């Protein structure tokens, strides 16, 4: 299990600050006034069953879904009022947002590199192609790649601008175990470079234990549990995060009052 960093205390230590974030679709409450933060050098796992509100939360942080209320600050910049500057410090990879399949790996990276204002773009792309073992696919259209290869391209895109905040929505869902482990190492190294934070959703609890400094359990739009994986296991008398996840998913009401 990962040795956790101390939780950030001062606002300067926080890359992402989410305060009282709410989102409803008519009668359905998707996200129920949640607050959390991601510190510098910290990987935070956002866990929960399907429909818990994880992707909704990430989409609001990315500025593609407007919250009903609450605020999202990325390095102190409010996404609602300083959208471009806040998103220039952010990037993401999500299993449901593959890059256009009719463009090659290089073309996609070049286009998004221009949009994110990446300096020395050609060198940066070359470095990422090497890092994610994509050099042989440089001129292959993304649509012709396997799902695992497409995931690696999405991750390369997510790293293009060396984001201060990296959002990863089930990033290893399509990867084989070896590739997933390499990717976890890459993300871990990325986060430990100091000035960056990662918000990570996954249904793989072993992966979450291995990577995340802190986890948030989300159910029915609410954060039911928050803490370091080891401490949470000890507090709830569970051996693994998977056991804890199943307990939270099956009986969220017993935890809501805590």
């Amino acid at each position, binding site marked *: 299990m990962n040795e956790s960093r101390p939780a950030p205390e001062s606002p300067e230590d926080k890359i992402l600050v989410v305060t009282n974030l709410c989102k409803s*679709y008519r009668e359905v409450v998707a996200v129920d006034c949640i607050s959390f933060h991601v510190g510098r050098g910290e990987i935070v796992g956002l866990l929960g069953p399907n429909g818990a509100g994880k*992707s909704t939360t990430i*989409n609001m942080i*990315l*500025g*593609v*879904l*407007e919250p009903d209320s609450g605020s999202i600050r990325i390095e102190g910049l409010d996404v609602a009022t300083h*959208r*471009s*500057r806040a*998103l*220039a410090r952010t990037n*993401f990879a*999500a299993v*449901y*947002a*593959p*890059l*256009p*399949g*009719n*463009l*090659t790996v290089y*073309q996609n990276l*070049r*286009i*998004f590199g*221009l*949009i*994110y*204002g990446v300096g020395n773009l050609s060198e940066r792309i070359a470095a990422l192609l090497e890092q994610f073992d994509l050099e042989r696919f440089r001129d292959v259209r993304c649509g012709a790649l396997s799902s695992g290869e497409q995931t690696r391209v999405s991750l390369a*895109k997510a790293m293009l601008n060396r984001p201060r905040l990296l959002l990863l929505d089930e990033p290893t869902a399509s990867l084989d175990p070896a590739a997933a482990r390499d990717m976890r190492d890459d993300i871990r190294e990325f986060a430990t470079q100091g000035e960056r934070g990662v918000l990570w959703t996954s249904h793989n609890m072993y992966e979450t234990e291995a990577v995340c400094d802190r986890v948030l359990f989300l159910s029915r739009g609410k954060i039911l549990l928050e803490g370091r994986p080891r401490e949470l296991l000890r507090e709830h008398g569970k051996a693994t995060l998977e056991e804890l996840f199943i307990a939270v998913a099956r009986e969220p009401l017993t935890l809501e009052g805590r």
Partner: protein
Amino acid sequence: MHWRRMSAIVLRYFYLLRGSPARIVPLFAWAGIDIVLWGFISRYLNSVASAGFNFVPALLGAVLLWDFLIRIMQGVTMAFFEDVWSRNFLNIFATPLSISEYLGGLVLSSISTSVVGLVVMLLLATTVFGLSFLGYGLALVQFLLTLFLFGIALGVFASAIVLRLGPAAEWFIWPIPALLSPFAGVFYPLSTLPKWMQLVSRVLPPAYVFEGVRRIVAGGAASGAALAWATVLAVVYLVLACWFFASVYRYAVRTGLIVRYSAESLS
């Protein structure tokens, strides 16, 4: 406005064109076919009509200008549809790219592709059918400017419709020029139309352009005031179209449409 971000949208379209003959050929094929068809129709009419009236600048010139407007409009919508077809909204809109930069990129893409169609049409019309734009004089600049602005406005408006109603709504977009053409009086004077259609024509900038073309062909001069009004109208439509797109985008962000379009298949 960041030029680099706008250039990314243009570059994306260039990459798509470069790798796809199916995208390149339509840039000039339909416009070229129109010019050939109407070129021969004009020649035939010249041979059967009374001497003294030349149908080439009247009909062929009008077809060329109308096709120019259609190319401009479709240049914007095609660049936008590429994001629809590749389900790229989430990737594009979760970046620092602003809506004005995105629209600016679509307009620049449209200019670059429309120029191809315009050049092919001009070459065919002048070399094969002897159409001379010198006869239009300086008014030609205002004709093209007005049609360009209105074409961009139509393209942005059409893109907003698809953003609001979803990918399947693209089938509403293709007939828009055909719906407008009777009111624009591309081939006949507006006085031919019934009163209610003339009222509609008055708020359509192309109607003033084609009235101007006919005046010049008849030996007169296009009304400077009417053309200036047409340009002002086109600018107003462009501003309204951009405002409409921005409003639809805000609605899509508020309701989750952007996210949903990315997740849904096109079926």
